[in-house]
């Protein structure tokens, strides 16, 4: 029988080693796998390369890993927010490296990583500072940049509901980077509100098919357990 559920988030991230590349979903606080991030902080792995769109928008986000000096490199589109102060300091002292990528190129590079496309040409960022030094080529009279796939050793994502096989559905705009990151990591770990029986989700409504999801952490059952222990 297929079992992807882990007892808790600490177990689910326990094997993430130093120097891993970790894709972290979410757009601001929406769809942010905050328990998995906290567990990764407790795991303590260092030298991490983090791929995540917003850095610093919320306190429980990737900023916490930067503060904890676990991060070597950030790949993102929007590295500013109330909680990015340390990032700015670390960037200036060279403690953290930043690769700034336009949001659509970031999403597309991750998609390419998941889809077996090694590189692609996009018009975005041509003739800009972010295109400097990149290989370029003209298609349809328009300059394009060659952009390379991004893959992760791990993806930490957030979804609303899962089944035992690992199928996922999301709540509203919680989807954002989560489904695409799910496709692009060796090991995708999803933090979900609840795990339902296989067959309880409609085949038409599944957003991340089971093939992309390797580990599940259920928030509801832990809260349930917490209540029992506290009760």
């Amino acid at each position, binding site marked *: 029988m297929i079992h992807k559920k882990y007892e808790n988030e600490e177990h689910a991230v326990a094997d993430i080693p130093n120097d891993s590349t970790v894709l972290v979903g979410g757009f601001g606080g*929406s769809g942010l796998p905050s328990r998995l991030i906290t567990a990764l902080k407790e795991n303590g792995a260092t030298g991490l390369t983090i791929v995540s769109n917003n850095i610093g928008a919320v306190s429980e986000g990737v900023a916490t890993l930067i503060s904890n000096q676990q991060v070597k490199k950030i790949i993102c589109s929007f590295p500013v927010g109330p909680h990015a102060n340390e990032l*700015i300091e670390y960037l200036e002292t060279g403690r953290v490296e930043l690769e700034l990528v336009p949001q659509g*190129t970031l*999403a597309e590079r991750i998609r390419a990583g998941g889809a077996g496309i090694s590189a692609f040409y996009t018009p975005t960022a041509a*003739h*800009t500072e972010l295109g400097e030094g990149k290989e370029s080529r003209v298609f349809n009279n328009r300059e394009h940049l060659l952009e390379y796939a991004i893959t992760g050793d791990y993806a930490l994502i957030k979804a609303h509901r899962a089944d035992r096989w690992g199928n996922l559905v999301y709540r509203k705009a919680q*989807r954002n*980077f989560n489904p*695409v990151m799910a496709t692009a990591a060796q090991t995708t770990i999803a933090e979900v509100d609840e795990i339902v029986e296989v067959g309880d989700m409609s085949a038409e409504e599944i957003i991340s098919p089971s093939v992309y999801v390797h580990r599940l952490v259920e928030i509801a059952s832990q809260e349930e357990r917490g209540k029992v222990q506290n009760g």
Partner: protein
Amino acid sequence: MVRPYEELNGWTIPEVAGRIAAELEEGWFVNLGIGLPTLVGEALPEGKEVILHSENGILGIGPRKHTGETDSDLVNAGKEPITLLPGGSFFSQSESFAMIRGGHLDAAVLGAFQVSMRGDIASWKLPNASLGRVGGAMDLTVGSKRVFVFMKHCTREGTSKIVEECAFPLTAPRAVDRIYTELAVIDVTDGGLVVQDLAPDVEFEEVQACTAAPLQNRNVKKHSKVSEG
């Protein structure tokens, strides 16, 4: 007499937002950038079907929520709580930018630090800043069928944001179609910047005086208190 920028009373920001909202056509799919452009959504006439897109994977966003319970999974690109209209849909970030880059949006209304006379736009990084925040700006300027800039005409210091050449890092070259400021509506054409409309009580010469690029006065429909009264 040509008055300086700080003495000019142009349109109010809500008036500009309303003007843009009126010019977005029924059935258009439109992305509104963070900041001033967000106001255009609030200014859309009731019942006018302009479908608003948000980078984080939403089509059909409704008015921002001012009161009541907020839903952290229903926010716009500025992470502000919003509502979803009937007919709205959710999709992933890769689909959202496929939509943008693939030319499916009829227009993007964006803010900017500078716009050049050729339609170059600089909107993601201040010069010498250690960090830029590019977000979706480069994709939107490159992919949208029309790029409208909604910005104040000058900085707080009175420096023109419309320039001959952008001094700030570019978001995209030759991307902007039209500029909306509190003083004028200006089209970027192959022949240069053309003022299409002026705010009431503002003279073309006054707008030119606070604009660091040559303007043309073609097709100006002049408003004045007299003609309006």
